[in-house]
């Protein structure tokens, strides 16, 4: 396993403390008159993209950042890769302060952004790879080895000699990944690596990342909108909404912390039993002989007992609501909370009102 575990000391790979980033955006009002006024007097709005994040990531972790658009996920990755400076707070990656942009740091990580190109458009990808070899000072032997290994894993050997502009989006993404991994980075930041790809290509990239990470034990921070990406790859999930961390834990734990409800599906023996089910909980769907109810988690045993005592039930299924729905609810709640006092994420389920 070459180049792995270079980060030997025991301290965490990523340490973030109270990191915040806000920036001003020019507010242009509608209309020509407003445009003219804008020539002399500009109004700016302060956007708080990240509002005080604390995070520790250990060596070898594969962490997913989830959150709605504009939640601060990409901003966080940009901060960690040194593209932007924070407004306040500190962060260290492998002992380096990212925004100092030391070459020593820049040779140890890689950032891959979904649609952005680090490859030369008109040249075959192998030429861009050569350039990376020089920029990152990779010796010829390990360059050849890494390149062959990556291109074999991603099944792109045949495409190396083809100009990048003639490749499909999926093939290009594979080339981007290869370029980013040539210098064997110890930390990898992936911003929407599967955006715009078809299901097969998404799956390929997922499988590749999973295998690569498992083999090399590198640390990966990923943002994605695709729950499938996250479910397939990451044991640890960090939910960011409104620039704050709302949740940090396992994927399955999200349901426990954010959803106060269970979905109960009942199959009745007689159809007329389905008339006034509202008294047991929120009715989601009735397709005789089945009915689907949303019931507060704490009330499930009591309600079930009541239903069973009053009706003849042929089948019962109690399940958690779909993950996407729970997360969407969590995002919506974070948005509602933003102007109110900040509540710790753990309390989120306690004060949850029934989300529809």
């Amino acid at each position, binding site marked *: 396993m070459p180049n792995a575990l270079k980060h030997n000391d025991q301290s965490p790979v990523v340490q973030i403390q109270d990191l915040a980033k806000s920036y001003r955006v020019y507010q242009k009002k509608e209309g020509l008159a407003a445009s003219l006024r804008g020539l002399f007097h500009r109004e700016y709005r302060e956007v708080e993209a990240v509002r005080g994040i604390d995070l520790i990531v250990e060596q070898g972790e594969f962490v997913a950042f989830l959150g709605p658009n504009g939640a601060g996920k990409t901003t966080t990755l940009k901060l960690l890769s040194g593209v932007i400076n924070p407004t306040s707070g500190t962060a260290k990656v492998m002992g380096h302060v990212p925004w100092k942009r030391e070459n020593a740091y820049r040779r140890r990580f890689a950032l891959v952004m979904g649609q952005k190109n680090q490859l030369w458009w*008109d040249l075959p990808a192998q030429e861009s790879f050569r350039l990376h070899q020089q920029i990152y000072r990779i010796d010829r032997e390990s360059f050849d080895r890494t390149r062959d290994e990556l291109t074999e894993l991603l099944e792109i050997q045949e495409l190396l000699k083809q100009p990048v502009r003639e490749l499909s989006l999926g093939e290009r993404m594979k080339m981007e990944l290869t370029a980013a991994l040539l210098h064997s980075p110890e930390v990898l930041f992936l911003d929407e690596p599967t955006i715009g790809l078809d299901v097969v290509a998404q799956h390929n990239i997922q499988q590749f990342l999973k295998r690569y990470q498992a083999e090399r034990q590198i640390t990966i921070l990923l943002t994605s909108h695709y729950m499938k990406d996250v479910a397939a790859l990451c044991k640890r999930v960090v939910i960011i909404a409104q620039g704050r961390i709302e949740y940090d834990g396992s994927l399955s734990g999200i349901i426990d912390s954010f959803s106060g409800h269970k979905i109960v599906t009942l199959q009745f023996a007689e159809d007329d039993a389905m008339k006034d089910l509202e008294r047991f909980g929120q009715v989601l769907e009735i397709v005789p002989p089945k009915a689907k109810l949303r019931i507060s988690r704490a009330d499930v045993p009591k309600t079930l007992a009541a239903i069973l005592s009053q009706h003849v039930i042929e089948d019962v299924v109690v399940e958690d609501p779909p993950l996407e729905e729970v997360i969407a609810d969590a995002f919506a709640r974070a948005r509602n909370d933003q102007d109110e006092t900040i509540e710790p994420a753990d309390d989120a389920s306690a004060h949850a009102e029934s989300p529809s």
Partner: protein
Amino acid sequence: MYTRAATWWTILRICLEERLVYRGDFALGTLMRFLPIVTQIFLWQAVFHASGRSELGGYAEQHVVAYYLLTMLSRAFSSMPGLASGITRQIREGEVKKFLIQPVDMLGFLLLGRIAHKVAYYSVAFLPFALVFFLCRSYFSDLPDGAATHSIATFAAFLATLIMGFILGYFLEASLGLVGFWWLEVRSLLFVYMLLSFFLSGHMFPLDMLPEPWRMIVNVLPLQYLAYFPAAVFLGKVSGWELLQGLCVELAWMLFFIVTARVLLHRGFKRYSGFGG
């Protein structure tokens, strides 16, 4: 040192390859460069014919043509098509991030790209250039003793002005492009620059034909080094102390723009990363 040289060589090689992808456009662009010179020759023939004089502003008729041929050569070194606008586009579209993330210096990288551009250009343009100069050799007759055709020292000075002209042109245009960190769109700035440069670099007419105070203004500006100065040196118009002084001022301007571009890049990156990327 060796690894750095290898890096530069690779960048140079790849830029060269990229240049040669569009062979047709490249060849046509090279040939088109010679078209304006033909119209200039006809124009000045008409001017001399109408005035009935054999010398205008210190230039014999054939030497005016020689001057144009030489400014064409010096502009081939100093002009940087698409450099400033390319830098602004990279800033606007976020491509500039690459230089924040990867361990590579933006100005150095683009400079190598330009060198490759010029090398590729000359490898194609050498033959037509040589042919044109050969056909026009009679225009270079009767030059004074100080001209590059007679003196090796002048020829060396001429080469120095060409190379400094390239570096000056690169850092000057790069500085203009880097203003894009603040303005996002620098098209009008570039337009003003192109206009000024067109008249004040000596591209249109020999600058020493200008009356005072224009002559003096042009003298303190850096633009004359992009076209006029190398040609004037070759033709022996500038010599002795004046030549040495001119070379020193050109060097000073060159250093000034190297520093300016560096400062702009540093501040620009700072602003960019403060702004939100």
